[in-house]
């Protein structure tokens, strides 16, 4: 299958290795990966701020860029939700059809692997790892990916340790973390304070990781965060040298960087 990667702003600049792992993973699963170069921002910052006209302009740009793609995969539950759930709300009459069609062909990475490809066993590269899963709000409550990420991690041999605040918002929320910075930080603290002892925290959203990791580091919590794409590629590619537990900060200092 031909899959277009929609890398997203944060993954392009802050989680480049996780985005590369997404490509490796998709290729490993038999997909031909393309990267439409004209892609930009999905428009969610403007949409969440109530600037729907600006968001619609970005949506229409993105719809044009991915118009002819068989499937579009994003290493982000939040940006995938923007395309799948919010573009159809934004687009007016004729583009609405286009938006609905794109929404149907667009997937968050874990969603694509489980629901579209029907794969839950990627390899056993995570055997013996204790991981906590941060369920991103959009992936969980908009895309209803309630079981998919955990199934993939467990399928790779990881123990997904129960976490009381697993499904609670980390407090990022884009503009929210800037406008209501104290509440946002307190929300991250609740996540960190309830975190069980694990090798790392896995999340499918770079925004959540930047926020939680930033809070964790300023408090000296010493928690390691790994992007879902990187964790899943580890599941396949168990042979590569530096183990997941040794990488911190979302794989930004991970393999291929040194």
């Amino acid at each position, binding site marked *: 299958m031909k899959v277009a990667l929609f*890398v997203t*702003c944060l*993954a*392009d*600049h*802050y*989680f*480049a*290795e996780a*985005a*590369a792992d997404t*490509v*490796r993973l998709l290729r490993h699963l038999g997909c031909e990966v393309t*990267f439409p170069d004209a*892609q*930009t*921002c999905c*428009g969610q*910052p*403007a949409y*969440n*701020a*109530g*600037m729907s006209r*600006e*968001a619609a*302009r*970005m949506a229409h*740009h993105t719809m044009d860029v991915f118009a002819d793609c068989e499937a579009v995969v994003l290493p982000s539950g939040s940006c995938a939700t923007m395309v799948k759930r919010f573009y159809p709300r934004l687009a007016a009459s004729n583009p609405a059809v286009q938006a609905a069609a794109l929404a149907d062909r667009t997937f968050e990475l874990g969603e694509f692997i489980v629901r579209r490809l029907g794969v839950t066993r990627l390899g056993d590269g995570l055997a013996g790892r204790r991981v906590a899963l941060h369920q991103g*709000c*959009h992936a969980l*409550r*908009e895309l209803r990916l309630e079981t998919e990420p955990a199934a993939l991690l467990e399928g790779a041999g990881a123990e997904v340790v129960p976490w*009381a605040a697993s*499904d*609670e*918002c980390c*407090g990022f*929320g884009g*503009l*929210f*973390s*800037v*406008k*209501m910075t*104290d*509440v*946002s*930080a307190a*929300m*991250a603290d*609740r996540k960190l304070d309830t975190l069980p002892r694990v090798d790392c925290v896995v999340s499918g959203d770079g925004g959540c990781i*930047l926020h939680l*990791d*930033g*809070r964790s580091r*300023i408090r000296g919590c010493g928690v390691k965060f790994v992007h879902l794409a990187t964790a899943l590629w580890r599941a396949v590619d168990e042979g590569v040298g530096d183990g997941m537990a040794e990488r911190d900060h979302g794989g*930004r200092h991970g393999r*291929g*960087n040194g």
Partner: protein
Amino acid sequence: MSARIGDYATRSREAIRNHPEVRTAVTGATVAFDEKRRRAYGEVDADLWRRWAEAVKNHLLTHLGDYLVEAEARLEANGAHVHWARGADEAREIVLELASRHSVRSVVKGKSMLTEEVELNPALERAGIEVYETDLGEYILQLLDEPPSHIVGPAIHKTLEQVQRLFADRLETDPGGDPDELARAARGVLRDAFINADMGITGGNFLVAETGTVALIENEGNIRLTTSLPRVHVALVGIEKLLPRMSDLAGFLQLTSRAATGQSIGCFVSLVQGPAAAPGDDGPEEVHVILVDNGRTDVLVHEHAWEALRCVRCGACLNTCPVYRQTGGHAYGWVYSGPIGSVLDPGLLGLHEAMPLPFASSLCGACFDACPVRIPIPELLLAWREEAQQQGLTPWKERAALAGLANVATRPPLYRLAGRVGTRLGAARAARKLPMLGDWSNDRSLPSPSPRTFRQLWREGIK
């Protein structure tokens, strides 16, 4: 309680930094409530119940005029008196006039957010009338002269130790008294208040149009006493609290209880049908129902916000909200707090007055999943945000930045250039000096960008 929403950010910061016990108490209580609600939803086909309740309320709200007229006729046929209050001032005047007519010197109250909304207690006290809040949580707050911080658990921001100190000081209980002992002490005071009260004032969870029945759910028995012991019972009911038929009530009583406290039904359900049938029978001599608008018809005609009028005031959205849990309700600045407050207050008070509440949410969506009448709170928050942007109620720099983003993101070469410049050339460090991102970086370590962007990795070939 007068609205003073504007400085939400300051109040939430103060609550988090200076009153950590509030966050501990509120998080503990709401997490427990939320777990009970989830369990109670799990015992039934909650999705079906919620869709049904949504449909009933939508029908009601689209035929509200007819049902209000029907309710008035049925209430009067039952012997109750019906009053219409357009605003808070009219609601207060009606109660004061009734109090004066009946020479009322002492009032007992059941818990009612609407009486908070119309600021009834201060008006009664100014008229020289003694007011006793008889819900235990409300009674605690009355002793402290604080407004409720939660729709259902008004004092959930208080710790046991704080109540122990308060009661030791005011009711001479043992400073280490357990909750039962504290409740007994409050009951001692309130028992006398019930016996001596000339008037009982309550809200109303529901008003059934078909039968003219005011329905009240509670767990302490204080509402039962408030509605039945004093000579006069006055119920203030928001016009959106109607239900078309008695058969609807059965579902709503159960669904509301499950959503609010995880109970299959409240310990006490009082159905007020009118005054005592004959002298000497149980019940008040007079029952008055005040139907209060106070901004609700404005909300009803709003393109989006009308959906918030389905609200049954169960507090489930507060309990599940990670934003509410950090600060409790007082930070929000008005009587309705949490997710529902953030969409209802702009409608009832006007958006300008309620800013920045539509932005006091990470849009995580937990509130919608909890809501028994499926109010799409995240969508309504976005609708208010859009109005706020259009009316220029947000910082111009924010609007300019997002407009700039749209301009850049629709021009791919410019976007690629801006991305490289933005993240590569130390912009993250410069961000510390920016007014908005400066705050962000005080509370979080700033991230460092990947050594090479994905675009670079892609061009070089990913192996």
